């Protein structure tokens, strides 16, 4: 069950060099910015605890943030094909589709 992000709202996720076996991640939820860790091996991906800025948001920005944070909690796997990254839950259901930022 998917819906494109609302117009004018962007959410991003970046993976950085691993430290202590966990990858550092950062990005934006559509409202706040976050940093945190993720554990990945081929095909598998789990997000750790995120540190989130605490801006108050409204409307589409807030709803997007809620959805993005839900996705992070449920992500268990990923598939990657060229510039596309798909996050999936443990059952293989698609949680989110992302595209590599150019």
């Amino acid at each position, binding site marked *: 069950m998917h*819906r*494109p992000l609302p117009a004018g709202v962007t*959410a991003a996720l970046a*993976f950085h060099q691993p430290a202590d076996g966990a990858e550092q991640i950062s990005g934006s939820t559509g409202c706040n910015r976050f940093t945190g860790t993720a554990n990945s091996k081929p095909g598998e991906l789990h997000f750790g605890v995120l540190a989130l800025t605490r801006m108050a948001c409204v409307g589409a920005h807030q709803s997007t943030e809620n959805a993005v944070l*839900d996705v992070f909690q449920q992500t268990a796997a990923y598939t*990657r094909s060229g510039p596309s990254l798909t996050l999936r*839950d443990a059952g*293989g*259901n698609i949680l989110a*589709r992302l595209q590599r930022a150019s």
Partner: protein
Amino acid sequence: MIRLPSKLVPAAFSFLALALAACATPQVYVPPQGGTGIGPQDRAPTTPDKAGPTPVETGDAASDGSEKEPPAAGPEGPLVPLLDSDWIVTELSGAPVPDSINMTLSFYIDRTIAGISGCNRYSGAADMDYETLRITALVSTGVNCPAKSGTLERDFLHALGDSASYRIDGPALQIMGRDGQVLAKLRTAG
């Protein structure tokens, strides 16, 4: 040579589309041969004998070999019609809603709904997947309305509260109750 990277770092991505509910099962795609008893391919990433041609590239199997997307789906994949448009109520419990009554329903990505119930505005929470629909936490503004729209308004909000499932057929949406009875008929707006 393995083509797909096994590591995600370093790379930056932008979100294109988000799931609404984790329990949602992908729809739209039907295997080309009927009667296989196997659901959408997205749902069975580990099933080796699924229907349909799947040009699996060896070496990629661990990450995506058996998870080809439906060919018709664009880069954002199948979208849920429920969320794709605003809906106008045309019928409540078998009785047509007059054109003069403005009665609408919209679904949002954060599992909420909102609309106009004939006179007042309302909002609520919606728990849904590809078949079921449960609407809770309905709240309505408290404007006094003409008698006619007031009655329809009450019927509509009751119908929403009793919803258990839905069906979409082209521009038509039906909301059904627990026993499968049609509570409301809607059509896409615009």
